[in-house]
């Protein structure tokens, strides 16, 4: 029981981080990014590949992957998604376009990853056991959790206490109004999208030390991140963290008590309950 709680909690750190990134992409840049999971797996692939061929410490890759993903996602937003934002007449039209475009990108990234490594990204790094409040877990999980908390916390402080961060939150509240008060909306959106990608890649590199991934698994992470975002409420960081903890613990419980093959089904069950009872998010207010 304690084991489930501890490992579920440790896993949820990374989930929360990735969901935060997706929240920035959807909440601020208004792009429903279905390629988010592939960016995460790309981060994991980088860590795996650099570790097995160059023996590079995966935690260095975390930083490198975040920077590379930041640049890559900024370029994607600037050159591939901005035309869609401009041509969209309504939010609905943009959603359809961005879903199809990012879905296409997810396949392209997946195809490229397949040509680099067709099998599992399996390697071992810092998998020594460690004991936390009576429950045994591994060092890499604890580091990943701490790193996720660090990055997420930094992001939270940045969003709340810097000029740019507050501007970004303003864009998420209203694109039109923030444009009227002199915020450079296209720039903020690009920045938010790039940050979201960076966070996903960092999360991928972090979990690659203790979860074995492969090129086709990205969609599962996209789905989990989306479920967390919806459960927490779009734009609600506190909600996303609580949602991530719920998902992490429930998944771990299902995997240990019933069957590891049912984690996705468990995530769907949570999703259905949220859609039926609290579609506005855990802490959201009902809108008319």
């Amino acid at each position, binding site marked *: 029981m304690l084991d489930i709680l501890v490992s579920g909690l440790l896993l949820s750190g990374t989930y929360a981080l990735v969901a935060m990134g997706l929240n920035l992409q959807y909440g601020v840049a208004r792009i*429903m990014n*279905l390629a988010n999971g592939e960016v995460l797996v790309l981060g994991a692939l980088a860590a795996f590949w650099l570790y097995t061929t160059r023996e590079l410490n995966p935690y260095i890759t975390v930083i490198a992957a975040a920077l590379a993903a930041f640049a890559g996602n900024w370029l994607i937003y600037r050159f591939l998604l901005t*035309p*869609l934002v401009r041509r969209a007449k309504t939010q*609905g*039209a943009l*959603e*359809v*376009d961005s*879903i*199809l*475009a990012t*879905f*296409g*990108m*997810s*396949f*392209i*990234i*997946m*195809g*490229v990853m*397949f*040509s680099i490594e067709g099998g599992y990204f399996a390697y071992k790094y810092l998998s020594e056991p460690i004991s936390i409040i009576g429950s045994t877990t591994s060092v890499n999980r604890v580091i990943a959790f701490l790193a996720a908390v660090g990055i997420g916390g930094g992001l939270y402080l940045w969003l709340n206490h810097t000029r740019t961060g507050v501007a970004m939150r303003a864009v998420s509240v209203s694109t039109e109004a923030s444009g009227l008060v002199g915020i450079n909306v296209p720039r903020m959106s690009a920045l938010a999208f790039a940050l979201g990608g960076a966070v996903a890649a960092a999360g991928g590199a972090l979990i690659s030390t203790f979860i074995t991934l492969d090129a086709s698994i990205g*969609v*599962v992470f*996209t*789905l989990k991140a*989306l*479920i967390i975002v*919806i459960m927490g409420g779009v734009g609600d960081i506190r909600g996303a963290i609580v949602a991530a903890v719920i998902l992490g613990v429930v998944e771990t419980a299902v995997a240990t008590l019933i*069957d590891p*093959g*049912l984690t*996705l*089904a468990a*995530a*769907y069950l949570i*999703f*259905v309950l949220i*859609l*039926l009872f609290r*579609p506005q998010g855990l802490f959201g207010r009902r809108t008319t």
Partner: protein
Amino acid sequence: MRPSGYLELLIVAVLVVLAALFPLVGSNLHIGVGLDMMMFAALAISWALFSGPTHYISLATAAFYGLGGLIVAMGMADYELPFWLMIAVAALAGGVLAALIGLATLRLTGVYFVIFTLGLAEMIRNLVSWIQNNFLGSHGFLIFSDFRDQHYYWMLLAVVAVVYLLGWVINRSRLGFALRIIGNDETVARHVGINTAMAKVILFTTTGFFAALVGAIVAPRWSYIEANQVFSPHISFLVVIMALLGGTTRLWAPIVGVVPFLLIWNWINGNLPNQSTLFIGVAFLLIVYVLPHGVVGRLEQLRSKIREGRS
């Protein structure tokens, strides 16, 4: 009602008869390709019935298709029930599943629906494997059947014809009108008194029904069926690409996408199998950036431009 509507039906009826004669003259290889085309035509047209007017991208085709196939396989292999009974059961099950999904997600915005359908096939596959591992013990089903490729071809052709006819009727009904208003502006639709959720759920149920029916019909062709095979998510993406490539503005438009795409897809799978994922990605980007209204939409734009130029 405009007479041109009946003219359209007449043309389609003639084409269906011509298509039905094809297996009598074509070689086995050609019948095989024709069968695939019929299958995707049925899936793409029924997909477009719902996703065309509403713009809700459904990625659930594989879930219905797989469910249909699995039900037929289970019924025929484990209980020795007749094929015709099982395809009816499978199609109804697909309809019920679609209705449940629709009731849970279609009351909300389109994004939730897309996300839900995204992992649906994978989730059902996990669930089925788990049930099989723990309670049934068997992993696959052997199915014996006397059908040959031309029989599947004819059955699928019949499905295409029925879906087309149904689409034609819906387009002319209050429901079709309501859906077009929803697609243009959902808020307006709600304010003029349309029960938007119900209209969407009904149409999505139809889509699910036919996708499961198609999966059920082709099930015996596999001979040996496993959950891992029939829930292959590729079907969902291919259907979306084909339908959008052709366009969704006309009932027949998806077929314009099905025929060329399937030929290219078969070629890629034969010659460059490792690049097929990449190819799907490129096809999606092509649709978004070059052909946002499909080939048919693009042609119609050109035609109206030429007309404007003349007058």
